[in-house]
């Protein structure tokens, strides 16, 4: 085996120009294949992060506002108490209430409506909230007299893009005008201006409609729990909250992260098409390689005859010709994978395929293995026919050829 490998390497070295030219197509095809898989992994990560921004990280449980069959009003304090008990009982690190409300912000030239989301600091981690300027809420922000706000880029621009180090403020026209301090700004929305702001639950109490007024929204509560405990905790939280609220209250706890949706990967069809294209490129590369290898073996009949005369068995000749092809395509594969790594890891390209990617995604090992595997497979395929021709060489005829 070592000898066959040495022979293959020597053949590659002597005919490197021809071999390299014939391998160009294979290297490009492998680069395409590995890039498709690599880009797919990066895009999947980007999509996953996007989905987690919406529904939370797996597993995110949601305690919907309980309701009563007889139309009774739920006491928000009682629900908040039940939530706090659950968080403490199951040692849940990331949990919090979420309330959506519309309010109006007072700008220098008039007031406009915004969507306000009241959350706890944990929401930022649970929903991968990215902040372009400033930062997300901390526990200390709950102590502020003027509630802290994280606003969208559209609001910030509307305010004249003030420097956050100057602690810019904006007035919320809720139950009573309340001044909020902007501590963070979200990245620009790629789909156009989005007038949205986050406020801490502690600060929202000041502008929320009074409880029992009919205008107040009951918060829902989210819990980020270990995936393997999600089913058990869903039932336990539901039972605990129902028990805390007493008879007559319908309590619903559900999963809302994307893994619970059971939908197929929306990128799968695109990935499949790209893989088919890369496969066709690879096949064409393999065909040209077979062609060249075939012609080369015909030209090397004499050399093969000489090797047979000096003791090379048919198996050894077969192996050497196969290895020549495999060694060469493996090298092409390495080059192709290296190209793919450069392409996929390139920041500029990544900004197009996965803008706003939060977690660093290394070049997927599976893409490298698939690329190298395809290269070796093509090499074996391209080497098979010439190898079969080589073992049928009649030694003396070949030498006198």
């Amino acid at each position: 085996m070592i000898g066959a490998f040495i022979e293959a390497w020597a053949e590659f070295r002597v005919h490197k120009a021809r071999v390299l030219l014939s391998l160009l197509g294979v290297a490009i095809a492998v680069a395409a294949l590995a890039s498709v898989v690599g880009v797919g992994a990066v895009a999947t990560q980007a999509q996953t992060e996007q989905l987690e921004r919406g529904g939370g990280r797996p597993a995110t449980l949601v305690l919907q506002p309980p309701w009563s069959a007889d139309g009774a009003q739920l006491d928000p304090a009682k629900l908040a108490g039940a939530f706090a008990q659950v968080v403490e009982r199951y040692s849940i690190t990331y949990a919090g209430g979420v309330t959506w409300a519309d309010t109006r912000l007072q700008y220098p030239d008039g007031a406009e409506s915004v969507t306000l989301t009241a959350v706890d600091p944990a929401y930022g981690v649970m929903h991968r909230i990215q902040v372009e300027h400033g930062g997300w809420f901390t526990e200390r922000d709950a102590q502020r007299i003027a509630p802290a706000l994280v606003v969208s880029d559209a609001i910030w621009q509307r305010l004249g893009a003030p420097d956050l180090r100057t602690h810019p403020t904006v007035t919320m026209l809720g139950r009573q005008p309340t001044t909020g301090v902007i501590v963070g700004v979200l990245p620009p929305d790629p789909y156009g201006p989005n007038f949205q702001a986050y406020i801490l639950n502690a600060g929202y109490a000041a502008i929320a409609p009074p409880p029992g007024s009919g205008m107040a929204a009951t918060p829902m509560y989210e819990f980020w729990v270990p995936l393997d405990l999600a089913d058990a905790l869903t039932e336990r939280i539901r039972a605990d909250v129902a028990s805390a609220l007493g008879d007559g209250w319908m309590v619903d706890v559900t999963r809302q992260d994307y893994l619970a949706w059971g939908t197929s990967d929306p990128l799968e069809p695109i990935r499949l098409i790209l893989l088919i294209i890369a496969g066709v490129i690879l096949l064409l590369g393999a065909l040209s390689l077979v062609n060249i290898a075939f012609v080369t073996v015909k030209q090397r009949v004499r050399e093969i005859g000489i090797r047979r005369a000096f003791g090379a068995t048919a198996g050894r000749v077969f192996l050497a010709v196969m290895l020549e092809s495999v060694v060469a395509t493996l090298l092409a594969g390495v080059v192709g994978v290296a190209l793919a790594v450069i392409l996929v890891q390139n920041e500029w390209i990544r900004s197009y395929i996965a803008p706003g990617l939060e977690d660093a995604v290394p070049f997927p090992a599976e893409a490298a293995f698939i690329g190298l595997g395809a290269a070796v497979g093509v090499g074996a395929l391209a080497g098979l026919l010439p190898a079969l021709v080589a073992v049928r060489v009649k030694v003396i005829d070949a030498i006198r050829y």
Partner: protein
Amino acid sequence: MALLSLEAVTRSVVLPDGDRLDILRGIDLAVDAGDHLSIVGRSGSGKSTLLNLLGLLDTPTSGRIVFDGRPLERLRGGRRDRTRGRDIGFVFQQFNLLPGRTALENAMTPLLYGRGRQFWRRERIARDMLERVGLGHRLHSTPDRLSGGEQQRVAIARALVRGPRLILADEPTGALDVDTGAAVMALLDEVANASDAALITITHDPNIAAMARRRYRLDGGVLSPLELLA
């Protein structure tokens, strides 16, 4: 016991029209270690076919070939190839060096099919052999930079690196001028004697044939002793 013996060996082929062509007829030959014999024949006399059989590259239609006490039919496939690689060295008319490889790499080629010390120390062995044939200063020259005589000496070194017991020289001087041819034959004779290897030279040149101790003529597929004219 002879190193190689052929007993009533025939070789025939069936032509496309169904006729049978007898290439070799009733060949009897015994070659001992250290023997030096030559076989002279014109084109079409069956020299190549006989070379195939002597080199364990072909199987006779009838008759018996025994190499080192083992009948050819017992040596099949890979075993026959390995025996050939280990015990038989070939020197060809057109040198047949591997293009693009240096003299050293060419001389190392048979050792790639060896085992143990022969494989792992192949460079040392090949280097020593090239020095022995007077090419220690041309180790890294490729065939296109060597003269005809030098190329044939590389070919001889290649044939000898595995210490063969039988050297088959097929028209070894066919591509050389008279003086160089004589020098190459002297070298072959010398190294064969030194290693007690049998040397069979197949040639159409009576002068080269005359250098052997035993001489044969192959004519019409029949091998017979050759008497040289005084």
